[in-house]
């Protein structure tokens, strides 16, 4: 199987090349995420970082994890972030000025220090150490290996995770779902009884759809009744409220300009 080794000097392996291309990109994307002004851009950059991570997982023989990363994490969680951004209002650029005195400076110092220390520590730890790949773990196949672990060795945590999911559901409902007063919405049965047992059956056959036959199917042009008068209920209430309704007579057959006097089509 593919062995990725970080020994310096063996660059010709494709994973190494892949890593040297993608790693700087994802670091840049991560930094961009911090610096960029618009929220959506930073969300997208985050998505990019996740995708590169997924690629790394796959490169490291953890195919299942890579896929899950893309499907669940990038797919669902990133979408959740975007929804939240929309919820909060996408165009509101958050100001990047820092009002806590000296916060940015210490943050940078701490981050650099933390990173530097980690790099030197891990460097010191991993230099000239043979890194063991997932060969042994993947022997029954990546997913099968995982499955055997999850469902035998860690069966109890797996069951407890369901508790996590329920808590998440509870939380979502508690915080986001506002209980509409039950009575407000009519149930299916109530709606049909209103339609057919109401006082008049005028609308029982359903409302005429808007637009004039074969001439103009715009939503804001009312349909013509058999006697040629526009049908008011073929336009949605919103448009009449907004007064966007156009006069359908202008599209009546009679009033169209003669076709013959224009030579050559448009």
């Amino acid at each position, binding site marked *: 199987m593919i062995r990725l080794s970080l020994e310096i000097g063996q660059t010709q392996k494709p994973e190494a090349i892949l890593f040297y291309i993608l790693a700087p990109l994802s670091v840049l994307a991560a930094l961009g995420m911090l610096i960029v002004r618009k929220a959506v851009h930073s969300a997208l950059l985050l998505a990019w970082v996740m995708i590169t991570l997924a690629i790394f997982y796959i490169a490291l023989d953890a195919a299942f994890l890579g896929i899950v990363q893309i499907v669940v994490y990038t797919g669902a969680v990133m979408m959740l972030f975007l929804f939240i951004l929309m919820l909060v209002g996408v165009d509101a650029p958050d100001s990047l000025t820092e009002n806590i005195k000296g*916060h940015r400076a210490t943050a940078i110092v701490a981050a650099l*220090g933390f990173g530097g220390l980690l790099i030197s520590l891990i460097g010191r730890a991993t230099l000239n150490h043979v890194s063991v790949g997932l060969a042994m773990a993947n022997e029954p196949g990546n997913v099968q290996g995982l499955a055997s672990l999850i469902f035998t060795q860690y069966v109890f945590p797996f069951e407890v995770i369901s508790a996590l999911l329920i808590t998440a559901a509870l939380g979502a409902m508690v915080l986001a779902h506002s209980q509409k007063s039950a009575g407000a919405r009519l149930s299916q049965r109530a709606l049909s009884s209103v339609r057919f047992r109401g006082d008049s059956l005028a609308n029982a056959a359903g409302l005429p759809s808007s637009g004039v036959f074969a001439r103009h199917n715009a939503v804001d042009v009312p349909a013509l009744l058999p006697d040629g008068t526009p049908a008011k209920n073929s336009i949605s209430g919103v448009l009449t409220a907004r007064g966007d309704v156009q006069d359908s007579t202008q599209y009546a057959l009679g009033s169209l300009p003669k076709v013959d006097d224009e030579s050559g089509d448009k």
Partner: protein
Amino acid sequence: MTSNNLVYLIALPLFSSGFLMMLGRRADKWGHIFATLISASAFGIGAFEFLQMLARPSESRAVTQKLFSWISVGTFQVDASLLLDQLSISFVLLITGVGTLIHIYSIAYMSHDLDRRRFFAFLNFFIAAMLLLVLGDSYLNLYVGWEGVGLASYLLIGFWNQKPEYATAAKKAFIANRVGDVGLSLAIMIAFATFGTVSFAGVEEKVSGASTAALTGIGLMLLLAATGKSAQFPLQSWLGDAMAGPTPVSALIHAATMVTAGVYLITRSNFIFDNAPTAQLCVVIIGAITLMFGALIGTAKDDIKKALAASTMSQIGYMILATGLGPVGYAFAIMHLLTHGFFKAGMFLGAGSVMHGMDDEVNMRKYGGLGKLMPITAITFGLGYLAIIGVPPFAGFYSKDKIIETAFNSEGIKGLFIGGAALLGALVTAFYMTRVIILTFTGAKRWDEKAHPHESPFLMWGPMAILAIGSVASGFLLSSGNRFVSWLAPVVNSHEVEHAERFQPVVVTTMALVAVLIGVAIAIAKYRSDVPRVAPTNVNIFTKIARRDLLQDDFNEAVLMRPGQALTNFLVATDERAIDGAVRTVGAVVIGSSKGIRKTQNGFVRSYALLILFGAFALLATIWVVTL
């Protein structure tokens, strides 16, 4: 030999003083009589014991009584027990005898005073304390009496403490005594350290073994105690002001008994001083200095009581000087002490009756010509006067003459020098005592208009008469055939050792008489003409200094008081700033750091996250260092 009625000597007056104090107003009517009876009964017991002692052979005269074992800490054993030997019986008789006379005198003298009962309670307390002092068988018991006497003198000097200056006088006396007491306590401690015991007998046995340095130390400390109690140089400033107390107090305490406690102490510790020559030399020097000091002050004082006080100071100077002259001197010192007790108390009571007559006027310049109006007082005062200047048949002559003689006989130029000082002292004493007699009893009347002198009642001139008889006869009685010297010999083990005599006794006596006559002549010459009612101010520098008690108060203030106050102010300030400051700063630091740390809690998530990152960074840094 033990006897079990020594304790009554002390218990009776002590109990009666407590009883009178407790009863308060109810005891006013009979309180003073009760106190006087108690004092008289004490005198009776003393006399009985004296007679018993006389009957016993000389070597077994001492009598002891063990009350209870006071301190028993490991090897340190001190019993509260009493010792009555020849030395202490003479004191007992003096104290209770003169004391009773003064009690009688006070009945009349204090008749118009509201707190008479309290006065007599204090007097009884004083008698009890003084008896304990002289009867104690160890330095510690003596120390208890010593303190009691100091307290009694404070209470009695400050008896009329409505006047602020009397109260300060009492405080001054007490403080000066306390300084002396420090000396005594140090002496006791050193004694205990070197001998392991503080009883006189115990110390006497071990004294030969001790190092002279320790002995000198103890001797000097005892001397310091004596100067404090007996108003010797350098702690003599309080005696003049002590006259603020009622005259009987001055008579009893500041003439006859308390001030002689110092002499008793040195005499009692004769075994220490005999083995510590340097200490003995200091005693002599102190005696000589105080002798001249008192005499000079006496010449310039217009207040009759202050003049007598100055003379007491110089007479005690004589006694201290005598005790410093070796074994033989102790007996003459005590003899002079007894005779002085008689005539000085007599003169004080005389002064008291003069003041009584002149409604408490003390300035002699306002007396004059009282001899005719107060004949008895004049006679008794005169006899006392003759005794003190040392005219032959009277008591003063015998005792003072012996002191001057032994002074001259002591070896080396020291003898000459001290003898000369004693002689000069005798001259000046004669001068100022004659001055007092002339200003008070002879010459033109210089009274204020409203003064109408009259003779004192019998209750007052009675005791004065007895004392006058005492001052006449006591000298002869005590010294005839060296009776008193042999009486005291076993206590002060002054076995007859012949000294190389510089002068024959008769030569010394003639010299002394000549000096006295010169003094009297000068005084008569100076004060025979009219005496200005107001003390002249354009006097030479010496009189000015003498009037201000040879600047002793200014000296004390400058050297002791002001630096003391400065020190206390400094300590209070440092305590205020340093210690309280430290506590306050600790509090402030904690509150300050609390405010500081609170600032990190600014409510922003990102700064909390930064704090966590910083924590992680710190941990990593430590690992990085650890695994270098």
